[in-house]
């Protein structure tokens, strides 16, 4: 991750989500930020996970 600062930033956004977050009202920009951090094709968390698991 250290070699990809954008991925690191995305992981930081994603790790703030927790199970209880489902019950919180969230601003649109915050939801979009989380979604983008996951699905970004080059630096997203989902792509990183797919390569390793």
């Amino acid at each position, binding site marked *: 991750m250290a070699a990809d*600062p954008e991925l690191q*930033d995305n992981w*930081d956004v994603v790790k*703030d989500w927790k199970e209880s977050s489902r019950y919180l009202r969230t601003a649109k920009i*915050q939801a979009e*930020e989380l979604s983008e951090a996951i699905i970004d094709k080059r630096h997203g968390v989902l792509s990183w996970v797919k390569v390793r698991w």
Partner: protein
Amino acid sequence: MGQGSLVEMLIDDGKRLIDRLSEEGVAVTAACWLKEAEDSQWFLYLATPLVSEEGATKAAYRRVNTVIRQMPQPFWIDSLEIKLVGAGSPLARAVQDLHSRYPGPSPIPYRGSQLGDINIEAASIYPPVATPVR
């Protein structure tokens, strides 16, 4: 960092990071280590106006991570152990309230079950942070 006690080394590194952020012009209005009840893990919470009022954090993490990468080694805090919240968040307000009731230069151990809007097992509250120098 795993479960168990918060070690002195991480409290010291947290202070180093807060001081460094201040030197870099990043305002930190409240800072504490929290062991959250939900997953029993310690996190360094930093309240900063870098987090937007709507709660967007990515730009804030980018800025803080830049500072972390420049920290003199050894530095033991991983960026995934840091959580950024807004300067006006319930957590920031709760920490500032503790500052007013328990002023002092040292971190305050806190044994309540909630701090702001976060359910916790334990916490260590840093004293008020100096205003950024630039």
